[in-house]
């Protein structure tokens, strides 16, 4: 019978069916972070249970680390207990830790792909909802809670109900300065924030094939923002070329064998999906959120929706979002003055993201009164960006250039805005209070964020660059 790629990976990792009907799915790679893992380490110790496969498990420090240059354990006093508990728990259980001073430290969803820990057809789990990011390499990933994390540490399996399959087909090509982020936001706008609930999402189509791996990671990162726990892209030559020679990827004859297998990792032509969404990307413009959930999206040249266009039953949520964001119906989004710009997070902090932002910033300066930050997704990305001189471009323009971590995405390290500030951000959640109590977040691509920092107000990056040409 014809199978989807999801079914192929699922079947290959099905260990057993539990008496209660749940399916035990083997986890090939498990990556932990310091915000949630310490609690599980404590429970393991109390129950005197051991980690089954420390050799397939990795730890990172990302959520609470300071981004200040020269940081250490105590730069951020509230973070110190998290960092130490992570260090102790990882050491006690024989898990390799990418610690705060490790040259390869960074956000788990950036580090795991760039080191080649994540592989096509592999399963992956992180106690973080953006685990789905690594689906960009053709892996099946599950974000999980702390109890599930403990379960995986002890058993190396996760007990799941089989999700349904959804395909999102992205046709056409993207225009200049229109990115995977813009596509992902548009999809959420079309499907809604619960449209992918209970589904694993395969992204397919010409626009996906043309995307870089970094673009695919961004695309899959936002699967959870439409409610899907897993999102992925079938691997192809772009994937294989990107992974070759990464330190944790198979080498030599193992690589050849893996490559032969990876060539089979695609949905069969006549495979059936439970639902399908099609989006033509040809005329897509840069996108921006106007409200307080990631489906409240317009083109950057668009206007805040009128009440008449709101779906029945959503009027109260619409009014609440407008009130929180300090907007009125029909208002143009472009031109809104901003206080803060953040470029970073597991969504948009990889080298091509920073290159795209730097290309806009080069030779320009951040507008007066705007606080602008760039936080690379990993120390590796930071080093590579510095080798290319990007840090000098950003600093000369008045940006803060930070040490890598999750930073202002969730504010777990104290990087936050002030109430009432309008913040344009390359992150993934524009929820109330997410970037600080009362902060008004607009989600955008790195290019749009960079252009907005320069202009001091929300702008269409294409206009800014054409104006300069």
């Amino acid at each position, binding site marked *: 019978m014809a199978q989807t790629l999801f079914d192929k990976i699922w079947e290959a990792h099905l260990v057993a069916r539990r008496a209660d009907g749940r399916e*035990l799915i083997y986890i090939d790679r498990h990556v932990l972070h310091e915000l949630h893992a310490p609690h599980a380490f404590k429970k393991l110790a109390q129950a005197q*249970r051991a980690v089954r496969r420390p*050799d*397939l498990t990795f730890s990172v420090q990302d959520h609470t680390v300071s981004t200040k240059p020269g940081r250490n354990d105590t730069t951020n006093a509230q973070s110190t207990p998290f960092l130490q508990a992570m260090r102790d728990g990882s050491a006690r259980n024989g898990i390799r830790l990418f610690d705060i001073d490790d040259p390869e430290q960074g956000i788990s969803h950036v580090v795991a792909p760039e080191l080649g*820990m994540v592989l096509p057809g592999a399963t992956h789990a992180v106690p973080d909802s953006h685990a789905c990011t690594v689906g960009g390499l053709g892996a099946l990933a599950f974000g999980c*809670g702390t*109890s599930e994390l403990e379960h995986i540490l002890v058993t190396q399996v996760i007990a799941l109900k089989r999700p349904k399959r959804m395909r999102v087909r992205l046709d056409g090509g993207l225009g200049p300065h229109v990115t995977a982020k813009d596509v992902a936001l548009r999809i959420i706008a079309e499907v809604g924030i619960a449209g992918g*609930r209970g589904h694993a999402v395969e992204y397919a189509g010409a626009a996906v094939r043309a995307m870089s791996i970094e673009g695919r990671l961004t695309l899959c990162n936002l699967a959870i923002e439409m409610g899907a726990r897993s999102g992925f892209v079938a691997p192809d030559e772009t994937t294989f070329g990107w992974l070759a020679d990464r330190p944790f990827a198979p080498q030599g004859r193992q690589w050849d064998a893996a490559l032969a297998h990876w060539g089979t990792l695609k949905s069969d032509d006549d495979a059936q999906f439970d639902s399908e969404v099609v989006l033509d990307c040809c005329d897509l413009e840069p996108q921006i959120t106007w409200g307080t959930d990631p489906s409240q999206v317009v083109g950057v040249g668009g206007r805040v929706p009128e009440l008449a266009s709101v779906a029945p039953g959503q009027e109260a949520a619409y009014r609440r979002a407008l009130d929180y964001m300090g907007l009125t119906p029909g208002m143009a989004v472009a031109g809104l003055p901003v206080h803060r710009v953040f470029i970073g997070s597991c969504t948009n902090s990889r080298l091509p993201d920073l290159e795209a932002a730097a290309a806009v910033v080069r030779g320009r300066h951040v507008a007066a009164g705007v606080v602008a930050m760039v936080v690379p997704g990993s120390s590796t990305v930071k080093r590579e960006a510095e080798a290319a001189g990007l840090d000098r471009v950003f600093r000369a323009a008045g940006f803060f250039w930070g040490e890598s971590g999750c930073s202002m995405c*969730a504010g777990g390290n104290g990087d936050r805005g002030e109430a009432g500030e309008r913040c344009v951000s390359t992150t993934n959640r524009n929820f109330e209070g997410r970037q600080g*109590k009362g902060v008004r977040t607009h989600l955008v691509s790195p290019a749009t964020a960079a252009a907005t920092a320069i202009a001091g107000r929300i702008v269409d990056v294409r206009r800014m660059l054409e104006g300069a040409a």
Partner: protein
Amino acid sequence: MQPFTTLTGVAVPLLQDDINTDQITPINRNINPDWAALLFANARKRPDGSADPDFPLNKPQFGAPSILVTGRNFGCGSSREGAVWAMIATGIRCIVARSFADIYRENCLQNGLLPVELKPADCAAFEARVLAADGAAPFTVDLQAQRISGPGGPDLAFELPGADRTRLLEGLDDIGLTLKHAPEIAAFEQRMAGAQPWLQTAADSRR
């Protein structure tokens, strides 16, 4: 895990859709936080920091809630399990929602917090009953019978998959359930080491 059989107590209405886990529990900067104090910590306060008397959980009649009644897609967003622990710490052992986000529902089941989805046709009437009761009369959730009873109307049936029901009723340890399959896990690892050996090792080729 504490078993869940029946629960009788005050039902607090929070009738919004898409309440996310950042709203339920803003990110914890303390490694051992007071989870009860984090529950809706931002929504409970007005901009000047004082308690918002209009927020349901701040009202005196909802001072000791047992059941939270809410809208669609409850618990979307971050996977933080604190958003469940904060409910338990406040005494809430059951959430009746129009629907749940996938990860949040899973986190509920892991902690003996009963996630109930009523039949779509029953939701509006039940929400109206909870509003009308206004904390003055209790509701009872019976997991064995899969029924909710309370003032203002008939008993309502709900369904929880049998597997999840048994786990909650008996307070079964999820890890214990899986460890019964330890031999199959070991056999799987052996099989995978032959079929896709690169998945059974994650060595750093530079070391």
